[in-house]
């Protein structure tokens, strides 16, 4: 109810005195608790800026924060005011809502921030007044679209154009084939295929065109030129066959590789493909008699649709098609208004010219042609009015034609421009994404270093460690200490340790992607080998391949460098991902086979893998068994990368018993 109603209610109740003499039944008692109206001035302190308002003003909307008793939570008895630690500029609009009953949306503020403020104060955004509602909705939609694009680009939907990441080596052939089709620049084979098909499309189209050019017929019928297609039928037939074979092969391959065959069959591009190759096959099977050859010739027209296959190769064409689709309503309006105008003017012209003898305007439909030609200002001149009225109406017709056609065009143009810019923005964003992620990763690695230091200090203390590393002099805040303690507790609970990812990935050569893969490794050993040169990584991947396993074991048995762990990344980008279930561990021994096959596609958060960077050659030798690192791939379709636990296997061959193989990787959602 509007604020005004509350103000007028006492008045309406007072006016009810007029019913008293007429009442046939006794009236009910008045409700209790209607205490005398008192009004006082409240002070609301928003980040230092004081707003003062009547209490009644705030009470107008009792289902918001300020109008209900919820504001008592923010009351500061010492100063007698309500303190909110929020943006004072945006609070101004909120307070004006109480005062005037209309919520306005500031133009220069970010729509997201405004939304959050509204949510905090318990105001529904639908209350935004009509003056600002349109703009609010538009901006919100734009924002949502942009965010959706972002997410899509990051997640890299199947077959999405933004998926530039490399597929896991173990993915099925079908998936790789589909990706090769959708993103030609991922592999050379795909690129070759892309260019070959493009070339053949061009060849086919040019052949179609050249077929109809009249070639000088030599010898036989010298006085008559016949089209090249009839002169060299065999050559053209062979070329056509070759093109169709290539197109058919491509179509079948796409059909085979498509993740969803039904959807693929219904998509526009596949329809174009089908239409492009069908006439050939129909022509093959249709016998060459004169009855049907007429229809067959018509079918050949469809061969020109092959040119639409170029839209796979050109993004601009796709944008154009998409624009036309999205401007369907404007185009429809244009068509409708044109039709109306054509009919009106054609009728008028017909009746105006009816009296003239030998006139071209023989009927109204005949006049349609004149009207269209005039309205689009073509003016062929094959039909010309001769009466004065006809000329007057003809000129009006041409003037109005210009107007009618010019009106919807800017809408289409602006739509095209918007979509085109969106596309460009998407490309730019994808390029920036990698840089951004790398930077974030570097910033995050600082936090992981801290935990490693902490652990090392604790570890050394536990074991009466001899040496205090020189790097341990990093002061950490209370928050960090508690955080590290928490991680440490988790390690102890599961008797596994976090390990280093970078060393693991180094050894494996796995491309870690923007920190979005989760790796969980456990480093069992806190020992440091002084003579580490190279990290040996025990790798187990969630979706491993046999050779990797073997390699891992080989590495484990080889001399290992000491690096105690790779930098872990507390991936806060995992905000995009929902926390998945704790992935079970994969271990490297024979038992790992079963466990290793799980959760390849789990959408887990990136595990925080923490490992302690070990400065080579200055750490004491500790004899601790190592645990294999098991990593877990995650993210939709992302490859799992393993994290390596550096093993000191070289010097500890004895200790590299099965024990370390039994350690499981622990996955922790990023905090």
């Amino acid at each position: 109810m509007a604020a005004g109603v509350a103000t007028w209610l006492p008045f309406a109740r007072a006016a009810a005195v007029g019913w008293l003499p007429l009442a046939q039944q006794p009236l009910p008692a008045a409700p209790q608790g209607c205490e005398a109206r008192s009004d006082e001035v409240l002070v609301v302190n928003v980040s230092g800026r004081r707003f003062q308002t009547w209490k009644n003003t705030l009470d107008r909307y009792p289902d918001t924060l300020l109008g209900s008793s919820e504001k008592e939570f923010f009351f500061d008895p010492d100063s007698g005011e309500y303190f909110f630690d929020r943006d004072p500029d945006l609070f101004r609009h909120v307070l004006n809502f109480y005062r005037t009953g209309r919520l306005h949306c500031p133009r220069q503020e970010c729509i997201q921030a405004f939304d959050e403020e509204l949510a905090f104060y318990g105001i529904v955004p639908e209350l935004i007044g009509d003056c600002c509602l349109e703009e609010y909705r538009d901006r919100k939609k734009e924002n949502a679209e942009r965010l959706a694009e972002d997410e899509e680009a990051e997640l890299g939907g199947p077959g999405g154009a933004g998926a530039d990441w490399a597929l896991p080596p173990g993915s099925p052939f079908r998936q790789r084939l589909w990706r090769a089709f959708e993103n030609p620049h991922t592999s050379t084979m795909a690129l070759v295929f892309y260019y070959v098909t493009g070339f053949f499309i061009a060849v086919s189209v040019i052949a179609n065109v050249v077929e109809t050019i009249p070639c000088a017929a030599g010898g036989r019928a010298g006085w008559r030129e016949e089209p090249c297609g009839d002169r060299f039928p065999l050559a053209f037939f062979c070329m056509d066959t070759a093109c169709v074979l290539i197109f058919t092969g491509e179509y079948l391959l796409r059909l085979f590789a498509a993740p969803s065959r039904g959807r693929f069959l219904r998509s526009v591009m596949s329809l174009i493909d089908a239409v492009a190759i069908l006439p050939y096959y129909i022509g093959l099977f249709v016998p060459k008699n004169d009855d049907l050859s007429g229809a067959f010739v018509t079918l050949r027209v469809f061969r020109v649709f092959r040119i639409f296959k170029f839209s796979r190769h050109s993004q601009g064409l796709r944008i154009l098609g998409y624009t036309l689709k999205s401007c369907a309503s404007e185009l429809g309006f244009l068509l409708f208004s044109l039709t109306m105008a054509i009919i009106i003017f054609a009728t008028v012209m017909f009746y105006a010219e009816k009296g003239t003898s030998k006139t071209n305007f023989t009927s109204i439909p005949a006049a349609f042609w004149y009207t269209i030609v005039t309205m689009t200002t073509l003016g062929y001149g094959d039909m010309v009015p001769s009466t004065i009225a006809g000329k007057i109406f003809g000129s009006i017709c041409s003037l109005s034609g210009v107007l009618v056609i010019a009106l919807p065009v800017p809408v289409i143009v602006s739509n095209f421009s918007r979509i085109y810019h969106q596309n460009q923005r998407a490309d730019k964003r994808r390029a920036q994404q990698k840089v951004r992620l790398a930077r974030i990763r570097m910033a995050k690695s600082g936090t992981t270093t801290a935990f490693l230091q902490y652990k090392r200090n604790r570890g050394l203390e536990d074991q009466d460690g001899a040496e205090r590393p020189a790097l341990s002099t990093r002061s950490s805040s209370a928050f960090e200490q508690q955080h590290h303690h928490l991680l440490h507790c988790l390690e102890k609970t599961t008797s596994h340790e976090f390990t280093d990812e970078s060393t693991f990935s180094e050894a494996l050569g796995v491309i870690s992607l923007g920190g979005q893969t989760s790796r969980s490794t456990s480093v069992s050993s806190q020992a440091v080998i002084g003579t580490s040169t190279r990290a040996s990584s025990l790798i187990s991947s969630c979706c491993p391949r046999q050779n990797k396993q073997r390699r891992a074991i080989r590495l484990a048995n080889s001399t290992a460098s000491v690096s105690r762990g790779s930098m872990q990344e507390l991936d806060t980008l995992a905000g995009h991902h929902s926390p998945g279930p704790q992935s079970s561990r994969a271990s490297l021994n024979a038992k790992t086979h079963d466990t290793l096959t799980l959760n390849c596609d789990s959408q887990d958060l990136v595990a925080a893998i923490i490992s302690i960077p070990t400065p080579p050659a200055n750490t004491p030798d500790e004899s601790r068994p190592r645990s294999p690192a098991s990593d877990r791939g995650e993210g939709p379709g992302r490859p799992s990368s393993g994290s390596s636990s550096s093993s000191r296997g070289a010097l500890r061959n004895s200790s590299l018993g099965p024990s370390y193989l039994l350690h499981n990787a622990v996955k922790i959602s990023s905090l």
Partner: protein
Amino acid sequence: MLTLEWESEGLQTVGIVVIICASLKLLHLLGLIDFSEDSVEDEMEMATVRHRPEALELLEAQSKFTKKELQILYRGFKNECPSGVVNEETFKEIYSQFFPQGDSTTYAHFLFNAFDTDHNGSVSFEDFVMGLSILLRGTVQEKLNWAFNLYDINKDGYITKEEMLDIMKAIYDMMGKCTYPVLKEDAPSRQHVETFFQKMDKNKDGVVTIDEFIESCQKDENIMRSMQLFENVI
């Protein structure tokens, strides 16, 4: 042959006339020429009506409200009607928000007339305050007087059956359609009017005067008791 010529000539003439009229209209639309002469008056009407109420002390003396209550009342009033007066349309709108099921426009009209004591078509803050003062803080006599004034549509001092019928119908209209028991066409209000007149019209002359009204009401227990109901509205 001649007819054909005339046909085309006629068509040409018609066409020319149509074109001239259309172009005149277009020019008028574009504002280049003006046909009507009342554009000046339109400008004058744009000025908004502003009204400033009497001083606070004066109102306090005239009504039975305290200063604080008057302040609260005025703030609410001014917030809703920044121009300082309420016209009938706004009044009807406000009142209809309280009775969404039925049609309260007729009753609001009568109510508006009852509040608009100086009959200038708008209710100012003074009228508002005076009316509320009587209704909420007045004596029983004053309240009954006010009610009589409300029922007496033409303000001639007598309530006739027709006036009462109108009032009753307006009140029943506010109920709307979804009632229990179902409201039939006119019967309930007619019947109610009959009952009312039987009770109030002592000398059975078909009209109710102010004295008859007050006297009858004072004798009725129910009415007296319910007069206290709305004391504490503000």
